[in-house]
Structure formats: C-alpha cells, structure tokens
C-alpha cells in the first residue's frame, strides 16, 4: 500500500536566513543603507566577491564588517553605535552631506525593519504606542522617504500572531507609499497597485495559510 506523502511542514526563516534571502537580491554596485536589527545582518551575508557599498548615516561610505576586539578603532562607529571597519575606497563626510545622499535619491536601496506595512506602501517603524515616553525617530523618516527604493524586512506577524501586513497602518507612519518590497520569515511580497503581490513563499506554505496570517488581501503569484 502506498503511503501518502506528508506535506512539508513550513519552517519560518530565522533572522539570519531572512538577511541571507535579502542579500541575494542586492546586485553589485548598489549603494545601500541597512537599518538597525535584521537589516544590519545583511552585510555579513553578502558574497565576498560582490561589491556592494554600505552607507552609514553618521558619515561613512564603504563600511566593512565588525572588527575582532583587538582591532577596534575607537573613532569608527556606525549609526547603530557599533565599532566597524572601513573598506579600501571608503570615505568620511559630515551629517548634512550624508543625508543629502539619502534625501537626494543617491542611495539605491534602504532596508529597514518595521512594525507594520500597509498595502499602499505606507510604513510604520518609528513610534511605539507607549505613553509618557519621549519617542525617537533618528534617520528612519529620511531613509524611508529618500532612497531610490525601500525594502522592509520583518516577521510576518507580531509575537502574539497579529498581522503586520495590513490594509492601513495603526502605528504612526514613517513614510507614505514608499515601500517597494517586503521580506518576511514566510514570504517575499511586492507592493503593487492592487496590494501585496506574493512572489515567493517558504517551502510548505500555501497562499491560504499566508493569507490567514495577513490582514491585507494578497495578490496571488501570476
């Protein structure tokens, strides 16, 4: 008697696997800013033979990996206040010039984390709903608005299972209509005029199952 083959159980991607997935899509020659959190992990997932130039808001192009402790240069930190290195060809510049690169559309890509992304490309990633706490925005609005394209990498749902891909954001907005693509631990989605178009799902994931974890209506792969 033939046994029916059990469907593959979907294994949501880890943070590192999400970073690896994003790295695949970044071509040689792009100037890229990586936000704090999962986006930061992308740099280490780039193949060493692909030249991608990383930008840091505090005035660095050509940012390299975190050094071994004995090689730390105390004057060299990134926007996440981590000690980093500078690649050959790297440069330093002041804050206004750094954000001219961002605002002026010179960066090919900004990758940010988010609380929510809406089907119209709105993104919310800076303000929590805490009371009596001073909020911080940093460079999030500049990056979400200014780069040539904005990709978001985030978990598909919150820890308690609420969807993060929504019809309209409930958190305060970072930028309006600028998200081009979202990488989650379950899928890759493009923001198109009809909403979120699913371009990729992890093995074992079905469109119905993904839809049940998504508030916005998904556009099936064509």
């Amino acid at each position, binding site marked *: 008697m033939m046994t029916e083959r059990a469907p593959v159980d979907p294994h949501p991607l880890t943070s590192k696997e999400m970073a690896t997935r994003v790295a695949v899509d970044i071509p040689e020659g792009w100037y890229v800013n990586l936000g704090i959190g999962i986006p930061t992990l992308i740099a280490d997932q780039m193949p060493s033979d692909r030249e991608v130039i990383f930008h*840091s*808001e*505090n*005035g*660095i192009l050509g940012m390299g990996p975190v050094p071994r402790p004995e090689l730390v*240069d*105390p*004057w*060299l*930190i*990134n*926007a996440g*206040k981590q000690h980093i290195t*500078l690649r050959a060809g790297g440069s*330093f*510049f*002041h*804050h*206004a010039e*750094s*954000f*001219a690169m*961002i*605002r002026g559309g010179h960066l090919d890509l900004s990758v940010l984390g988010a609380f929510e992304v809406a089907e119209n490309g709105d993104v919310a990633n800076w*303000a929590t709903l805490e009371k*009596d*706490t*001073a*909020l*911080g*925005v*940093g*460079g*999030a*609005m*500049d990056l979400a*608005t*200014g780069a040539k394209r904005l990709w978001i990498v985030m978990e598909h749902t919150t820890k308690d299972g609420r969807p993060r891909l929504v019809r309209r954001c409930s958190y*305060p*907005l*970072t*930028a*309006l209509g600028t998200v081009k693509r979202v990488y989650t631990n379950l899928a890759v989605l493009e923001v198109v005029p009809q909403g979120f178009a699913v371009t990729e799902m992890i093995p074992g994931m079905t469109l119905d199952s993904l839809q049940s974890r998504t508030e916005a209506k998904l556009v099936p792969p064509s």
Partner: protein
Amino acid sequence: MINKFVSSVAEALEGIADGSVVLVGGFGEVGQPLALIDGLIEQGARELILVHNNAGVGQLGLARLLALGRVRKVICSFPRSSGSIVFQQLYKERKVELELVPQGTLAERIRAAGAGIAGFYTATAAGTQLGERKETREFDGRSCVLETALRGDVALVEAWSADRWGNLNYKESGRNFNPVMATAAKLTVVQAQHMVELGQMDPEGIVTPGIFVNRVVHIPNGIPTVP
C-alpha cells in the same frame, strides 16, 4: 597675529548667556566635545536649548547638564538611546521640552542656518506626525513640508587638528555633525585633540576653514569614551 587658541575651557566658553541655543557635535561617543560640555556645566548658563542628535546617556556630560536642570528644551532626533535615563525621567516629569526632528532634517536645518538659507521644503516627514502643523506644498506631485533654519548662539565642536586660524579637520566618524554645526552659530568654540602650526595642515584636507571658528582650546582627549 590671528590666534584663536585660548588657554582654558573657561576662557573658551566665556560669555555664554542664559537661554542660549547650544549646538553640540558628536554622534554616539565619537566626536563629542566632552571637555566643553563639562565646561558648560561649570560655566553656569541656564535655560539652555540643547541641539544634539541624542539627549545624553548615563549620568555625565549632557546627561549631567540635563540633571542639573539647566536645559529648558532639547532639539534632537533620537532621545531614547539605551542609557538616556536622565532625559526620559525629566521628560516624564514634564521638566524638559522636546522637539523631535528627523536626523537628516536636523542636519539640513543646521546647514541651512550656516549657509544663510531661511528654510527649505523636504518630503521627509510629510504626512506623518512630525510633519503636522507644518506648511505643506507639492513639488512634482510629491508632498513636502517647510523646515526652517536652526541657528545656534553657540556651537561646541570637537575636532582632530586645529591651527591658530581655526582651520579644522576631523577623525573618521568623529566628523558627523561637527562641521555642520561649526558653520551655524554666532560663537563657534572648538576643542581640538591636536594643535598644529599654521601651514602644517594640508589645504586640501581642511574640512572646516577657520572663517567659521571663533575659539579653539587644545584638549588632548584620548580615545572616545561614553561620558
């Protein structure tokens, strides 16, 4: 003979009045003019409006200036770095005002002040909470908000090298807001790690020409540390 070097921090900070708008350079622990901040604590000016990327961490430096009740308002992009305990507490008790500005807009408002530009339109923050109550105008179909120049009464800057004309350069990520702020205040005060002879700096490598600088004090500060 022009000599912008002064012999002490106290001399460098002489005349800073109560209510001054104080631009303070630095990002993270790098490029912060720590000796000048300590000097400002000593100097005693009150009701200050502090412009800096953050709002102080730990208990020393800017956090101490805040804790002493000397700051009326903070204009910054990110007041919630880990360790911004003093500011968060004062904010909660409504003892300090906050004007939250996107980081690039903060840098550009300061740059505009130094360049004599009264204001500019940017898409950053348009349609968001931080763009509320700001004049909005469409450019090429894109909604933009009007941002105005942010001028300091005083700028406190940390440089790597300085000569007696006040020419400056910076070290690595210690540049950050420093050269922008140096252009944007009525009184620009610099602490420099190295004092060099006139002519020793490579003219191609001078980041802040001395025209922007009023006073320099030589502080061989050692490596950047969290205050």
